C-alpha cells in the first residue's frame, strides 16, 4: 500500500467526513514499530505526532464518547444490569473501547464534594507495553503519528497485550478470540478526520490535533483551572511510557489515582521490557498466563494463513462438531 507523502496528520476533529473515495493515508509505510518484528524496515516518512487531549474538568460524563465510539466502530456493547453505579458497561469490553469512570470525592482541602469523571481507554503510549508484549508478528503496530493499532488479522488472542499494558486497556473477545481497544479511529485519521469521540464530545472536553497543539491547549486549560482554585491542576502525560498520545488535564494532577485509579507512574512491567525476539515465548510462560496458556501454546505455532487442505480439515471438524451437538 502506498500513501500520499504530501498529506500529513489531521489537525482537528472538528470537520465533516469526506464521501468521495479516498486513499487511506496511513499504511504499512507509516509503521514505525510492529509487534514481534524486530527487523522491521524503517518507515517511509515521519507523520506529525497526533494526540487526543481529555480535559476531565470540562467532562460532563455524558458518554457521548462511548456512544460515538460504538457507532463508528460498529460494535454492539452488551445490555447489562444496573449494579448500583453509572459505569455502563461496567468495564471496558471488546465491544466498548472507551468508558466513563465515575468517582465521588470529598475534597479534604476545600470541604467540597466532587464528582470526578474520567474517560478511560487506550492511551496510545509512545512506548507501548502491549506492542512489546505481543508475540504475534504485526498484530500490534505503531504508526509514526503515534497511533498504536491492533491488526486483528494478525492477532492470536493470547491476551499478552493486556498484561503488557500499564493501563489495563485491551480486552480479548470471547467470540472471535481477538484483542480489542481504541484505534484512535485510525480509519478516520487516515482520511484527515479526528476520532469519533473527539468530534462528538459536546463540551469538547476531548479535543484532537497534533501533540504539540494539544499540549499548548492543555497548558491554557491548566492555567484556567489554577485561576479557579485548583492549585494542583496539571497535565497527565506520563514519562514512564514515553508520554502518551491520549493524555489528560486533571484538576488534581498531584493525585491521578483519585480518578478511578489512574496510575501514578505507569511503566511497562520490567519482565515485558526484557523480552527480546524469541525469548518472548519463554517470558510469556514466566508471567504465567495460565488461563490462555493452553490455547496459546497451539496458536503460537500455527499459521494465520490457511491452506486449502487445512480449510478442508476445518470444515470437516465443523461438520463433526455439528453432528455431535
Amino acid at each position, binding site marked *: 500500500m502506498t500513501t500520499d507523502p504530501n498529506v500529513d496528520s489531521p489537525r482537528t476533529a472538528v470537520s465533516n467526513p469526506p464521501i468521495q473515495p479516498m486513499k487511506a493515508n496511513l499504511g504499512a509505510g507509516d509503521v514505525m514499530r510492529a509487534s514481534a518484528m524486530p527487523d522491521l524496515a524503517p518507515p517511509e516518512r515521519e507523520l506529525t505526532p497526533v494526540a487526543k487531549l481529555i480535559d476531565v*474538568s*470540562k*467532562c*460532563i*460524563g*455524558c*458518554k*457521548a464518547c*462511548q*456512544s460515538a465510539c*460504538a*457507532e463508528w466502530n460498529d460494535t*454492539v*456493547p*452488551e*445490555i*447489562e*444490569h*444496573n*449494579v*448500583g*453505579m*453509572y459505569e*455502563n*458497561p461496567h468495564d471496558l469490553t471488546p465491544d*466498548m473501547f472507551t468508558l466513563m469512570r465515575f468517582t*465521588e470525592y*470529598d475534597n479534604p482541602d476545600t470541604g*467540597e*464534594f*466532587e*464528582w*470526578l*469523571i474520567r474517560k478511560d481507554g487506550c492511551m496510545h503510549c509512545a512506548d507501548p507495553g502491549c506492542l512489546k508484549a505481543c508475540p504475534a508478528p504485526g498484530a500490534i503496530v505503531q504508526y509514526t503519528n503515534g497511533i498504536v493499532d491492533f491488526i486483528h488479522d494478525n492477532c492470536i488472542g493470547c491476551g499478552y497485550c493486556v498484561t503488557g499494558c500499564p493501563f489495563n486497556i485491551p480486552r480479548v473477545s470471547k467470540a472471535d478470540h481477538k484483542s480489542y481497544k481504541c484505534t484512535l479511529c485510525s480509519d478516520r485519521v487516515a482520511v484527515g478526520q479526528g476520532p469519533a469521540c473527539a468530534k462528538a464530545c*459536546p*463540551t*469538547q*472536553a476531548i479535543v484532537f490535533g497534533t501533540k504539540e497543539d494539544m499540549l499548548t491547549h492543555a497548558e491554557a*486549560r491548566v492555567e*484556567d483551572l489554577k*485561576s*479557579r482554585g485548583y492549585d494542583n491542576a496539571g497535565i497527565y502525560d506520563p514519562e514512564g511510557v514515553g508520554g502518551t498520545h491520549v493524555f489528560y488535564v486533571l484538576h488534581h494532577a498531584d493525585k491521578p489515582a483519585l480518578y478511578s485509579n489512574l496510575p501514578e507512574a505507569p511503566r511497562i512491567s520490567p519482565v515485558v521490557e526484557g523480552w527480546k525476539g524469541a525469548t518472548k515465548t519463554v517470558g510469556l510462560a514466566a508471567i504465567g498466563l495460565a488461563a490462555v496458556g493452553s490455547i496459546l501454546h497451539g496458536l503460537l505455532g500455527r499459521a494465520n494463513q490457511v491452506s486449502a487442505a487445512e480449510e478442508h480439515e476445518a470444515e470437516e471438524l465443523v461438520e463433526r462438531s455439528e453432528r455431535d451437538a
Partner: protein
Amino acid sequence: MTNPWTDIKNTDLVIVMGGNAAEAHPCGFKWVTEAKAHRGAKLIVVDPRFTRTASVADYYAPIRPGSDIVFLMAAINWMIQNDKVQWEYVRNYTNAALIVKDEFGWQDGLFSGYDPEKRDYDKSSWDYVIGDDGFAAIDMTLENPRCVWNLLKDHVSRYTPELVEQVCGTPKDRFLKIVQMIGECSATDKAMTSMYALGWTQHSKGAQNIRGMAMLQLILGNIGVRGGGMNALRGHSNIQGLTDIGLMSNLIPGYLNIPTEKEADWTTYMSSRQFKPLRPGQTSYWQNYPKFMVSFMKSMWGSAATAENDWAYDWLPKLDVPAYDVLRMFELMNAGQITNYFCQGFNPILAFPNRGKVTAALSKLKLLVTMDPLETETAHFWENHGEYNDVDTASIQTEVIELPTTSFAEDDGSLVNSGRWLQWHWAAGTPPGQAQRDTWIMAQIFQRVRKLYQDEGGVLPEPILNLTWDYADPLDPTAEELAKEMNGRALADVYDLTDKTKLVAAQGKQLANFGQYRDDGSTMGGCWIFAGCWTEDGNIMARRDNSDPDDTGTYLNWSFSWPMNRRILYNRASADLEGKAWDPARKLIEWNGEKWEGYDVPDISPTAKPGDVGPFIMNQEGMSRLFTRGLMRDGPFPTHMEPFESPIPNVFNEKMVGNPVARVFVSDAEQFGTSDEFPFVATSYRLTEHFHYWTKHNRINAALQPEFFVEISPELAAEKGIAKGGTVRVWSKRGSITAKALVSRRLRPLQCGDKLVHVIGIPLHWGFMGAARKGFGPNSLTPFVGDANIETPEYKAFLVNIEPATTEAVS
C-alpha cells in the same frame, strides 16, 4: 429561550436551577463551557441532586424539591438589601414605578381576593391605579408606598437566608455565597443567564418559579442583553414549534386564543383584545391582534371566511372550561366520557402521572389510534407484561389501531429549536416497510372524513367541507406547501398602511413579514410569528450561512428565527435610555440618531426614539412586569407554596395544601399521601444517556444505561438497610414499583428546620417495550395534579416510601 444557545458564550455567570443542562442538553451546555473557558464565566448549580451539571460547576447548593420560590424571593430580597440593583433598568424598563390599587395585599400565604370555595382569586385588586387620562399612575421616584417596587420590597422582606435554610434545606452559607455571585451581575458590564427546564415547570406552581427568576433577572438588568436572558431549555426537538403553532386546547397559532363561551361573537371576542397602551406613546404590539386573527381564519377557511360571517368565527369551537388539557381529558376518559383518542408520537401511559389511572382510562375508550415510528407502551397498554404491565387483557375492550410513521430521517420539514430558530431538514432514508409521513396520514384521515360528510351529510359539516386544502396532491400535501401556508401570502394586492399607493405585496405573493398581515381579509397566514420563514426569496429556514460578524453569536443568516429573524428578544433593553449599549463590549443594537441598528433585528420599531417608546413592546405598559396584575391565577408576585404532597407544612399557613388555586379532581385529591405514611420526597428526571421513552429502543443507549434504578443517599440506605445495587420497592399512594438502588453521596439529606428530609431520585426512561431491560418509571407513582396556570403535572416533588425488596417478592 429569550437568547439563542450560541449566545450563552457571552455570559459571565450561569445559574442552572430547575434544570440539568449538561445532562439533558449536552451540546447546548457546550456554550457554558465555552463561556467558562474563554470569559472566565462561573457556573452555579442549585439542585436537589449533585448532577453531572454540578460536577463541572464552580459552586453547588442543594435544595428541597418544590421550595424554589423561597430561594428566589430571598435572592431578590438580598439584592434589594445590598443594593445589587440595576437601578436605571428597574426604574425605566420595569413596572417598578407604577402604582397598585390600595386593596391589593398578601396575608398568611394568600393574596387579596381568595375564595376557598371556588379555589380561585377575585383578581380585581391586583391591578394598577388608572388615572383620568386612562394611563397607569406612576411615581418615578419610587417613593410612593403603593408603587410596585415598594410592594415587592415588602413582599420579599420575609424571605431571609434563615428562611431559605429552614424551608429549602439549603445551608445559609451556601445561599449567601450564591447571592453574592449573582449580585455582581447587577453591574452593567456583567450578565447572568438562567438556564432552566422542567425542574421548574413540573410543579403545581411551576409558572411562579419561572417568574421568580425572571424578576430577579429584570432587577439585575439582564433581560435583552447578550449573555443574559431567561432561557427555557425546551425538551423536545419541536416542542417550541408545537407550542408556537398552538397545538393545545386553548390556542390558535402564534399565541392567539380559542374563544370561550363568554365570547359569543366576534365583536365580543375582539373587545377584550384591544390592548390599549397603559402608558403614553407605547407600542403595545398586540393591538395588531385582529390582523393576525383574520389572516389565520383566512388560512383555515379561505373564501368561506368573510367579513360578513365574522371570518367564520362560529366554526371555531368555544371552550366552557379554561382548557381540555391532558389531565382533564384523562379524567373524562376515566369517567367513560371519551370515545376516540389519538396519540401522534406520544406515550401517555409512561408520560402522564398516575399510570394506574391512565391505564384504566385508556381501557374505557372505544378506539385508540397511535401514530409512531416505534412500538410504544401506550399502543400495547392492553398487553400483559407481568409486573411491568399487569393488566387483564381480555377484559379490555378498547380497539387499538397502530399506524407506522416515518422518523426524522425520512421526512422533510422544519423544527423550531429552543432558541426559536426554524431549521429546515431533508429526508435521507427510505422509510421502513409501509411507514408513512404524518402529513400523509393526517391528509388521508381528513379527506376520508370529508368524503363521508360529502356523501352522507351530518352534523355541522361546514368547517370540514370549507377547510382550505389547496395542495397539489390533496392526499399528500408537501412540507413546502404547508410551510408557505404558515408564512402567509397576499390574497389581494396589499398596500402600505400609511401610503395607500405603495404596493407591499401583490396578490398571490408570499408575505415578507407579519407587518404585511391585514385584518380586511386581503392576507392569509397560518402562524403570524413564522411570517418571513418562506418568502418570495424562498425557504429562509434552509439558509446555511454560518458567518457571525464580530463573534456576537447571533448568526443572523443561519436559518430563520421568529419573530422577524430576531435572535435576542427584548434586545432594545440592551441599551440605555439614550440608546447606547449598557456595556459597549456587549453591544447588540444602538440608536444612531435616526434608527436602531446593530447585530440583531431590533425588537422595537426601527425608528422609535429612545426615551419615547419602552423596550417591552408586547406589553401595554411598554415595560416588563415585576408585578403581573391579574395575568396569573396564583398571584401577581410569586409566594411560597408547598407541593401538594410535602414533608412539611407551608411556613406561612400550615392549613394551605399545595397551590390554593390549582385544579384538583375529587378522585385525585383522595389519592394524595401524607408524610406520616410516605416520609420521603421523590423527584423525577432525565438521564443524559437516554431521551424519554425513545432511546430504550436503541441498543447503544440501552447499553449505556441498561436498567431502571433510583438514587438515594447513603444515610437513607443505611436507615432502610438498602445495599448498593440491591432491589428496592418504592411506593406512593398511587402505585408501587421496583428498582435497583444506586446509593450515592450526590444525594444529601436536607435539614429543614426540625425535619431531616430525604430525597429519592427517580429517572424516567424505562418501560416494557424496546431494547433496554424492562422497568418502571416515576409516573406509576406521581400525583395527578397540575400547575394552576398551565396544568403541567407536579412530577418534581411528591411523597413516597421505600424498602429493600427482592424482585421475586414483589409482583
